[in-house]
């Protein structure tokens, strides 16, 4: 499906790839996603382990950023409280388009263990910002983080840039 798969095409002796500009741009975009790390609670510790040597999250081309202006997507890892929700909204709005959101852990998906009696917990970060990928788990295993990242890359690869009405992809 991807652009690189076509490199082996015996076209004019090889070395030439025919494709759409969109595919090229999306290929670049999906392989160098920088993220705004939004570590909130226990899931952030698992995410730290994910970032460290054993699992090496950076092989996806991701680099942690601390400023929303430089980030392509935001990783909400942990419990979103009402006090924090305000901040998340502000930071999300500061990010430049195109922007994506990954919600990590039951807490930011739906309130998680604090769903019933947590009077100060937002029942899902999707109530304030649009979420692209949900990663389930409490906390999710590092393998789940990898899968979530791959899902986001898939999504980016399918996006249309010029003709927004037509969705790319099914090849």
């Amino acid at each position, binding site marked *: 499906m991807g652009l690189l798969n076509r490199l082996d095409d015996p076209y004019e002796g090889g070395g030439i790839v025919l494709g759409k500009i969109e595919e090229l741009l999306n290929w670049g975009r999906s392989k160098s996603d920088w993220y705004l*790390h*939004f*570590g*909130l*609670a*226990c899931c*952030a*510790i*698992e995410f*730290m*382990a994910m970032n*460290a*040597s*054993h699992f090496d999250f950076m092989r996806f081309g991701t680099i*942690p950023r*601390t400023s929303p202006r430089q980030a392509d997507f935001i990783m909400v890892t*942990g*419990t979103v*409280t009402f*006090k*924090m929700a305000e*901040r998340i909204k502000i*930071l999300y709005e500061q990010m430049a388009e195109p922007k994506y959101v990954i919600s990590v852990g039951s807490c930011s998906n739906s309130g998680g*263990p*604090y769903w*019933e*009696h*947590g*009077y*100060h*917990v937002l029942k899902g970060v999707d109530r304030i910002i649009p979420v692209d990928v949900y990663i389930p788990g*409490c*906390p999710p*295993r590092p393998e789940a983080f990898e899968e979530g990242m791959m899902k986001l890359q898939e999504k980016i690869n399918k996006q249309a840039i010029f003709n927004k009405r037509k969705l790319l992809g099914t090849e």
Partner: protein
Amino acid sequence: MTEIKRYDLEYSQLDSDRMRINVGPQHPSTHGVLRLEVEVDGEIVTEVVPHLGYLHRSFEKHCEKMTFPQIIPYIDRMDYISAMNNEWPYVMALEKMLDVKVPEKVEFIRVIVAELNRLANHQIAVATFGMDAGAFTPFLYYFRDRESIIWILERLSGARLLYNYFRVGGMAADIYPGFKEDCLEVVKKVRKTNEEIMDLLIHNNIFIKRTANVGVLTPEVAINFACSGPVLRGSGVKFDLRKDEPYSVYDRFDFDVPVGVGEVGVVGDCWNRNMVRMKEMEQSCRIIEQALEMMPEEGDVTGGVPRRIKPPKGEMYIRTENPKGELGFYLVTNGTDKPERLKARGPSFVNLSVIPEISKGYMFADLILILGSIDIVLGEVDR
């Protein structure tokens, strides 16, 4: 003796305006979602006001609504880096109230998993402290080693971070075959990496320049603020509940309580607090080795868990030594299967309160290091 780097500049001397800066709540070096309102005079910190509540997850409300065994997962989520240590005082309080005798083997398993978790906690603490000072390598080394600890705990309990492994009167599952060998392997690895880190980070000249003589916490202040754990011991006060008020089987082990002695810098500075953690890791290794030796082979681990937990009316306060300090649970029961109230005394919260006191008069960049050396976890501060 080296001179302490505290800057006592008068406002009038500098003739500059004071400025208020906001650090956090979303900042990688605040170790969570802590917000600090800092007043600076040039680059010198004159006032720090911590703002809490960004991770308030209604712990006490949940305790009122849940039955006793259901509360254990919520206690995991208080101090999520050392979940095993958190569960312990809670089940101990219930066991005392119910008059349940814990089998010998269970006690040893508890000691081993708690010490393993202490190792994991201190590894994160030293790693992130190094990262605050600009050293990324210790982070990578420690997280590589931490995986092997996590792996053992995962095989025991089924979870990587939040274990829910303790039960009243026993454990959720027995140890697996080969547990002892795995633990010894981990101990070996931890010792080896610690040796490396000693050269790489602790005795690194840049690291010493940044952390020695910074954020000095005198023993008097530490005691007055009720600090505990490595923060208190870093100031030279020898106080460890495992030694001074032995619970479980800690009185049978031979281990030391390391305190800050000021090999570098003065007693009570960031370097010494960090050094105490390094030395504690060695002591934890010693405890694990002895516990593995003394642990009885036979014993029913899961059998003693009562079906219904309904303690009589009353109250109980139990405190144990968490990796971060003294963790206490004040449990009030009313004769039903839910507690009337469960109050936690979190070490992170108490230790955090000393920040405004010890960061005054240092450079702004030092404030980050001081915060890192206190080793807080926001889940426990806000609960």
